[in-house]
């Protein structure tokens, strides 16, 4: 279970990166990065998972006293939330940039934006 999730996550990362580094269209790159980010998030969550346990919320199903043996690791869950939000922020920013770049040159081909070099 954990391994499946993790392998999936890694494959998503690699796929995403492949897409981001081979597609020359900026929007496609952004999408590809989103894919990769998703992969990262899956990996994050997968790491904290413990077989046969439940979510780290103390309610009727998980009494406080038994929490330590009943719940999965809450930390990755907390981290993934932050990671998602940050990923979202960066993606938004990239989109805004993409818009602006298009406005400047009328193209979304990343190779066209290479006046700065050497």
């Amino acid at each position, binding site marked *: 279970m954990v391994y499946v999730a993790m392998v999936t996550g890694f494959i998503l*990362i690699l796929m995403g*990166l492949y897409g*981001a*580094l*081979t597609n*020359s269209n*900026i929007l496609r*790159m952004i999408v590809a*990065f989103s894919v*990769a*980010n998703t992969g*990262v998030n899956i*990996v*994050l969550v997968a*790491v904290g998972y413990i077989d046969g346990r439940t979510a780290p919320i103390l309610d009727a199903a998980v009494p406080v006293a038994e929490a330590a043996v009943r719940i999965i690791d809450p*930390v*990755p869950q907390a*981290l993934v939330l*932050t*990671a998602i939000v*940050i*990923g979202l*922020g*960066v993606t938004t*920013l*990239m989109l805004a*940039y*993409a818009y*602006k*770049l298009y406005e*400047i040159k009328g193209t979304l081909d*990343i*190779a066209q*934006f*290479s*006046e*700065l*070099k*050497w």
Partner: protein
Amino acid sequence: MVNAIFILVIGLGAAFLLGFLRDKRKLAYVVTLAALVSMAWIAARWLLFFAVDGGARTEIFTAGTLPPFAINLHLGIAEAALMLLVILCGLFSAIYMQNTLMRLGRRMMSVLLVFVMSLCGIILTRDVFNLFVFFELAVIATAGLILLCEDKRTFAAGFKYLIISQIVSILLLVGIIFAYHASGSLNIDDMAAMSSGTLKGVGSLAFFLMLMAIMTEAKPFPANGWALDIYESAHPAFSALFSAAMAGAAAVYAIDKLLLIGASQWLPVVTAIGLLSFVAANLLALVQTNDRRTLGYSSVGQVGLILVVIGQRDILGEHYLYIVGGILLSHAVAKAGLYWLSGLLSQRKLTDWSALRGHPLLIFAFVSFVAMLTGLPPFPSFYAKWDLVMLLAAENRLWILALILIATLLEAGYLFRWFGYIIKREKETDKQILSLASHKLAVVLSTAVISWGLAYLWGELSAHGNLLYALPLLFALSFLLLDQLPARIKNSLSIAGMVAYFMVSYPTYDPLQLIFGAIFLLGSSVILLASYHVSGRRVGFYPSALLMFAGLTLLIVAKDAFHFFAAWEFLTIGSYFLILRGKHSEPHALSYVIFSLGGAFLILAGFALAAQGISPFPLESLAQVAKPIAPWVFLLLAIGFMTKTAVIGLHIWLPGAHAEAETDVSPMVSGILLKAGLFGLMVLLMNMGKQSLYGVELTYVMLWMGALSAFLGNLMAVFQEDAKRLLAYSSIGQMGYALFGLALMNQLGWLMALMFVINHYIYKSMLFLSIGGIAKRTGTRDMYKMGGLIALMPLSFIAVLIGIIAVSGVPPLSGFGGRWIFYNAILESEYRLPMMLIFISGPIAFLYLFRLIHTIFLGQLKDEHRQIKEAPFWILLPQMIYVVALMIFAVVPGLAMRHVDAYLSPFFEGQGLNWEGFTITSHYGYWSPVSIMIVVAVIFATLFAWLLFVNRKAQKVKQFNIVYSAERPFRPETTHFAWNFFAPYRKALGFLMQPYVTRFWETMMDLLHSIADLSRRFYTGNGQTYGIQLLAFVVIVYLFKMEF
């Protein structure tokens, strides 16, 4: 004491607060500044607490829970200092960007505040995930602040950065989560405390990913194309922040923290990456023409250097903070300062910086920054580099040492070239390039003040003592303040100061020091007399000249390697500024400073190798250096010193530098400065004696070098058409003699060398002054354009005449004494082959000397020179003093020499001369200067008087009143035989004149530039490619470091 978390709170709070101030831009700006000031105040209070009160590190816990369960912040001296740096940088940038921020409104101000806050967060936090969050904040804020610039290209740069940061965050997150899994904690100290076993396997890989991710933020070569694009296109004030605060402070500190986890096995990786960046970036910077991109490359290089220091943490011990701090702060202050400075200019080519000319304060700021970057004294990076190099050598990490020095040299190369552009390139008058807004100016100048403050601070902290306390140096620096005074007043002050200093200090000198001291202090005062001829203010001359003299003065009293080297650097820099003042001296000054610094670095390496960690390292201890390294030390030091004496092969800087310098500067750099190299060699030889490497005796090699220099230097002088170049080449030859004498390693050889020190000072100064005066009057230095000036400039003529008799060693003048001792010296030595070369060079010297006097003073007077006056009085005065001095020294050389002879005796047993009355005897021969003088004078006077008497009524015939080939010549120009004067010689020996050496160095330079030009194409400008490069970088490092 205010809780340091308020730094973050204030930054963030102010950023949020700005949301209310939608239309009140002024108020928003004030809030921004106030926030930054209060943040800085908190950081400064903590810094004082740690530094002055010796407070202990404190922990700041959040959420009322202990780490690792909650995030904690660490605050120690390093954190406080770095935060102060970051915040001040932000504050200065905010002030600097006043107009831009006001235009863009509160949003940008809040982004700026968040940026500064997040950098502080990076510095403070001890939690890896929190580190990630703050890094992302910084990244996003960067993407925002990039927009400060009008340049459309910045959008592309920002997007490239976002691509990279995506990859970085992927790596970082994967790394963090697996590190968490392996250690059960997100706390850095916790992870570090785990036994290294925990971080084997997965943990180690996870650490690798984290390290690479954070490392990318420090912009290592080659995964840094995006950073360079940002540096080039962003607002300079942001580039300053990006370079100084983000890469140079926050990112490297994050790496430093992270390495607590990775421990020693990762240090080599960091070192390697740092070295690669340092070398490659500085190499690539050589071919840049855009100022901000150049600074970007330099930033990459400097951060690389900081990484190297971090990577060497294992051997630096207690010096770690001092060293890394020195380099880091130097980089930050200097780079930020330069970026801010660049914002004053509207054009982006390096050569456009000539617009700074006429603004001495700005130039002073620029020089301070450049000196700071290159690690010149008295700036912190100098102290830091010294300690670093010493420790590296002690641990035998010589490759690292070598690469650091090479890269520093490259960096010095392009930075000083840039400085040359400022001073020497033509200003474009039609364009208004420079805009001097007062707030921007205030920022730049206060940064310059800070740089000197840091210099003082690092001096105080240094174990070697504060260089800024040296009286001669202070004297030189004080002239920066006096620079508004008229030149004549400054001149009087300088002369008075130097003479007074000599009077006070000479009783403490031993005879050797006395000779050099007299030349360095009194000698230069005499030359300074000539400077009275310049009216006006002569901005920049006196600080430079006095800096050089300060270096020289400090050199002879230096007791340990550190002070010796510092003095060496002072004199190098001072003389560089002096030489650069010449009209066409830009390329020559550059090659001078590069060769000089190259030589200086060899000296540094030599000292480091010799010291083996002993600090301070007294110069006398060179004698105790043990066998396997001793010859290498000798070699390094000797080559370093010989660069200064312009031994053949390393001489190509000299002719241009000496010839193109100003009239009164040429004698300073030729007559005085060259002696520094000889002094160094004397110190070296006195302490280390003969050394052999692979069975080759090194002094024997030096002997050959000296002979070759004497021969080729003289030969090349013969064929010069430019009078000052002729003298310059002659200096190479003369220094060859002196070197030869020293390398003979017997007392007479040394005596001769010292004799040369005095003689060469006198006659070369005199000749340079006369020629300078003549060039001033005729407006040319080409000898064939002159002629017949004897009647118009008789005093100059006498000076030259006496000068050339002395140089050529013809009795009865003092040059002969040198030659006489020389022959006696070589008779004592067993080496015969190199002597032949020296033999040849003697008569050859005679050729160029004759040419000098003939083509200028004799022959036909040119029409356009008929109205010329004698050289100015102030230029003539020192010459006449020299004439008298030469005569005195010719008759009674014993005045000076017998003391030196006695002083040298302990070093060489029983080889001295016998000074009886007026006769000087050696084992071989004898010599009585007084009777020679009398005999020659009597014969001469008798004949002369007689001839005058006989021909007393002779009519003076115009020179042009001649006939040849049965015709009267009709133009004096065609009748002066001067050009290519020694044509037969050129036919016979011209093949020796092939400029192989020059071509060799030029090829080297071309090669470097070509490599740089080729390899920078690697940065294609395509953001995607940069992403691939980053990926490749990570993978390649992984492959190199496979043993996880």
